[in-house]
């Protein structure tokens, strides 16, 4: 009776078996044609993508590193350049200062020499003048006294006389 009831719903054993067989065939064929290759492909692609991602990550790290290197090199060269410039400036200022001191020194030397020359000229002139003056004085004195004095004693007298004067003090 139960079986008759099921038959009323349209259930039929050969149809059931045929459906099961049909599905089984589909399952086997799809396993071969679809699920096998597709899951393989999905896994493959997943792996590829993971690889690609890690490679990209690596590349990123490398790029960052090389950028840092380049930056460092640039920084270093800039520093060097600045150093060079500073050095050059220093050198130039030094040269300028040297030149200036040299010039000053030269000028001073020339001046000193000139002054020296002038001093010497004056000294010579003074010495000449003093000698002439002494001679004149002696001559004058000989004329006055009328007698010739011992020359050496004479000279001593004059020097003593001159030492007393301010003129001699200033020139010795």
């Amino acid at each position, binding site marked *: 009776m139960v079986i008759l009831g099921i038959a009323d719903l349209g259930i*039929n054993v050969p149809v059931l078996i045929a459906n*099961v067989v049909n*599905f089984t065939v589909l399952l086997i064929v*799809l396993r071969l044609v*679809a699920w096998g290759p597709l*899951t393989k492909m*999905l896994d493959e692609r997943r792996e590829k993508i993971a690889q690609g991602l890690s490679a990209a990550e690596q590349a990123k790290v490398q790029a960052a590193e090389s950028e840092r290197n380049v930056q460092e090199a640039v920084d270093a060269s800039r520093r060097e350049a600045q150093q060079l410039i500073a050095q050059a400036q220093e050198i130039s200022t030094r040269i300028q200062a040297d030149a200036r001191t040299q010039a000053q020194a030269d000028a001073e030397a020339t001046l000193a020499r000139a002054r020296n020359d002038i001093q010497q000229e004056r000294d010579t002139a003074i010495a000449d003048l003093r000698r002439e003056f002494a001679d004149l004085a002696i001559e004058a004195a000989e004329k006055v006294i009328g007698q010739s004095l011992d020359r050496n004693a004479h000279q001593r007298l004059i020097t003593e006389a001159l030492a007393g004067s301010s003129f001699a003090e200033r020139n010795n």
Partner: protein
Amino acid sequence: MKNPKAILIALGALALIGFGFFFVRGPKPIIEIKGEPLWTSSSDYGEFLTPMILNTQVAGVLATLVIIFVCWRATRNMKLIPSGLQNAIEGVTEFLYNTSIQMAGEKNGRRFFAVAATLFVFIWINNWLALTPIYNSFGKVVPVDSHHFHEEAHILTEQGGISWIFPFKLGGDAPLVEFEVDMHEVDEIDAQIRQANLDKAPREEVLALKEEREEALHHAQELAIDAAMPGAANLDLSEEYAVCGEEPEVSVTVIEECKREINIEHSEEARLQLEADGKQVAVIYPYFRSFNTDLNSPLSLAFISVVFIEFWGITALGFFKYGSKFIRNPITDPIGAFVGFLEIIAEFARLISFTFRLFGNMLAGEILLLVMTFLMPFLVALPFYGLEVFVGAIQGFVFFSLTVAFGALAVASHDHEDHGDEHDLGEHDVPGDQQTAPAH
């Protein structure tokens, strides 16, 4: 008149609906729950065992071929960077694959995937193919007589070697003949058979009664066909009927008998008239009918699903360990034995719920579409069509996910149940999705 275009469109839509309603309505649908046999074996082993080919099976084979062809085309020339068809197929596959792994874990998900995904694809493609116009629209013409009795039938008109149902009838419904069988006599014999069974009457007597019942049914169906022949009902038979009641002492039964004979006589005329017009009272068994609208199909799919679930359980846990889920020693472990009994019932309930969920959804959908195209063929039927597109895919996915979830339940170890935790059907062992409660 803010937007004349919108008003025009609305008017056009209304005109289309009206035109469809008055002129192009489909034939009044004859709802058949069983799949219609296109071929039946000549050897009769009873309704249950007679080999036959149903139109749903033809549709199933069609879907199988379509799926195989598409998959073959898509994977014939696979590339690592997919495009076109391969892309589409891969999208579906990846979605199912990931869902399966998410629900059952990496190892089991891979194991369940092929069967569950095939179930999904088969159900899905079948449901969507059923929305194409080749389904339910043409088929085998089966004339209604007492050998092929149906309670409703169409009047077919033959033209150009093809029998058509002409629905194009101004304001009228497409013709549908209804046969009302007088089951009075048959019921009486049924009561006698029941009585004989109760009395434990000899087998021959019961068989004789059953034969009698068949004959009575046959006769009643013949009478119904004769009485309802189109055209016969329109005849004015009052004069003829008057003849029946002329003699005052005639009983009511005799009058009824007399009237029936007059009816039959006239319906014979009507039948001849129909045949002369090239018309035929028949039903159509469509060549293609949605695979899942016949109970055999979801049942076979559910059967496959349950067999695979048990198979996974047995191979994962071992035959005896898996069996101990169902059968325990009632003396040492009475609660466990009872739970095992419930598990067995749950297993069968699973089979039935699988079957009727799919069957009910798809049959209801088909009937809905038939009725909507009958009532309002244009535009109004469209949303329901969209709904069916949705339901067709969803039902496949439900079947898929339940198979995976039940599979995950079956392979889950039930060791902790031995420590008195019987209420928990191993849900702790199922990773991922919580769709593990048996659905009913």
